[in-house]
């Protein structure tokens, strides 16, 4: 398993380098200008000077190599320094955002908490809701519960978050003023009250996001459970005199979870990708919002870095999914 993991990691390196290059070329080719949001009253000569100051006009390969050096060498050094208090990275140019003139990693780290809280929690909640729904739907196949579950998850698929989000706000923030409509990223949780506040402000976005996760995962879970319920070992367990609970939750569940867990693992990158629309609607201003504003602002270093981190996560989660598969299913040994 270990060698499998290491081998996959090694194999991933060239893939990732290639991906980074392609992302770069794509972004470079894309139309748009980091100065687009500057007012029209700024004259062209001044714009040109601002552009020069950002180093926009050097040739593409120079910019790519610079980025690659910064990403693969300078930033790790900075991290190393930060952890061990050394100063290897002193004087080195980090990846700097064009919008903020600040190191992109600092901002990414700043954004991480709210994204993880909201999107991550939504994912967890979605998973936690989806699994029981899937299990019950499968166990009681074609019951009303199952039918309703199917219907609701279809709705979950077909209603875009820009609709469900606004609807939630109208219902639960305006008509029934239970929850805030705007997320406060500065809230520090240090006592019970602020914790309550945090819970309240997370409720709506988490609900919107969780609906989608639930819809998808519960279908998966149901299918997987149905598949396993027909296996012979279930009968064996019953013949041993096990209770239905044990049969279902010990024997069938663990087997059914194998494919589902990998699906869950594959969904993890999307947490870090943030939920662009939902974040926007509830002003969560997480990584998704960071990416989308960076794209609108043509902040190439930021977009490039985020997109690449995303690619790394995707590749990693693919690997994690495979490894998990191997861990959960003793029959599979990658050697």
């Amino acid at each position, binding site marked *: 398993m270990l*060698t499998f993991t*290491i*081998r996959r990691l*090694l194999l991933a390196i060239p893939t990732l380098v290639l991906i980074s290059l392609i992302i770069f070329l794509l972004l470079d080719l894309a139309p748009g200008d980091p100065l687009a949001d500057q007012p029209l009253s700024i004259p062209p000569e001044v714009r040109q000077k601002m552009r020069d100051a950002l180093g926009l006009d050097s040739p593409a390969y120079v910019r790519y190599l610079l980025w690659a050096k910064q990403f693969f060498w300078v930033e790790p050094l900075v991290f190393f320094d930060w952890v061990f208090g050394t100063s290897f990275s002193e004087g080195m140019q980090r990846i700097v955002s064009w919008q903020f003139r600040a190191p992109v990693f600092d901002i990414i780290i700043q954004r991480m908490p709210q994204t993880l809280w909201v999107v991550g929690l939504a994912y967890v909640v979605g998973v936690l809701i989806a699994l029981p729904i899937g299990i019950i739907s499968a166990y009681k196949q074609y019951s009303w519960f199952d039918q309703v579950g199917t219907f609701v998850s279809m709705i979950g698929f077909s209603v875009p978050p820009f609709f469900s989000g606004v609807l939630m706000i109208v219902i639960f923030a305006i008509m029934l003023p239970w929850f805030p409509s705007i997320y406060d990223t500065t809230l520090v949780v240090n006592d019970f009250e602020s914790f309550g506040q945090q819970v309240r402000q997370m409720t709506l976005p988490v609900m919107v996001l969780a609906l989608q996760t639930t819809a998808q995962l519960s279908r998966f879970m149901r299918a997987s459970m149905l598949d396993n319920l027909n296996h012979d070992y279930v009968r064996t367990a019953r013949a041993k005199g096990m209770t239905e609970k044990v049969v279902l939750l010990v024997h069938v569940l663990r087997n059914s979870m194998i494919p589902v867990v990998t699906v869950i693992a594959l969904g993890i990158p999307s947490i870090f990708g943030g939920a662009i629309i939902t974040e926007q609607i509830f002003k969560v201003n997480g990584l998704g919002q960071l990416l989308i504003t960076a794209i609108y602002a043509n902040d190439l270093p930021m977009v490039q870095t985020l997109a690449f981190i995303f690619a790394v996560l995707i590749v990693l989660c693919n690997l994690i999914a495979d490894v998990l598969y191997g861990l959960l299913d003793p029959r599979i040994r990658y*050697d």
Partner: protein
Amino acid sequence: MAEETAVGPLVKVRDLKMYFPIHSGLFKSHVGDIKAVDGISFDILPGETLGLVGESGCGKSTVGRSILRLYDITGGTVEINGNEIAQADSNSLRSKRPMMQMIFQDPQASLNPRMTVASIIAEPLDEHLDLTDEERLARVYELMDWVGLNRAFAKRYPHEFSGGQRQRIGIARALALNPKFIVCDEPIAALDVSIQAQVVNLLEELQDRLDLTYLFISHDLSMVRHIADRVAVMYLGRIVEIASRDELFAEPLHPYTQALLSAVPEPDPDYERTRKPIVLQGDVPSPANPPKGCNFSTRCPKVMDICRQIEPDVFDFGDGRQVACHLYADNTAKTAGSTAGQTTK
């Protein structure tokens, strides 16, 4: 069934080896092989049925598939009807496919569930012949008649048939191109007792009618006894004994063959009360890591020291009977080469 004329063998297998490589480590280096088939040789005469028996996992299917070049074999030669198969390139191989066909173990799994019977049977026709729709349909009907399938079923799907009928579909497909040689890979193992007899009878009937040559793979010894002219017994990738049917069943020589035969229960309560089967202890060793010396040495009731050291030679008892066992080492006169199985006629 082979007539006592000087015809050469239809199928000539020499020192066939099929290793499945095991890759492991950081760079997937090649660290060993599963020696599924480890140097076997035999001949099959035209019109003859060679039975191939052995325990599960001993490499029977691999032999069958290697002969038809469904695997890229590791070593050895295969000659069918004078054509070299083992090394042929894909084009010439394709043109030789019609003369050799295969019937599979699991009639359910070997039929595409989304194709109708007619299209399954017609597939080889489409591949190798250029027939009009009518000619093709006529041929399909003819084949269905041969194997005893009602023509009305042509548009049905495999799952609508019973196991025996499905196996008939598989047989019809194998017959479509008028092959000379058919590998039957446990064609009856998945079938019910009463259906087994139907299929075996059909195979025999077709053999007579179409002058077919079979390699009949099975682990059901009583069925092999019924259908085969000669029988080869395999153990862990090697042939341990090959003999004509009657000789083999009357007087098995290799300890493994003896054990195998003694283990077959008879539907006769009186006999069964007294039968003392030779119960082999332990499991078959892994083909990835076969024991030193004789492969059977780990379970052999008659094991001697030499068995654990030296691989036994093949001893020829005449009449095509060969045994690879040290017990017969003093039968010096009968030593053959290191390759077992040639019919020396």
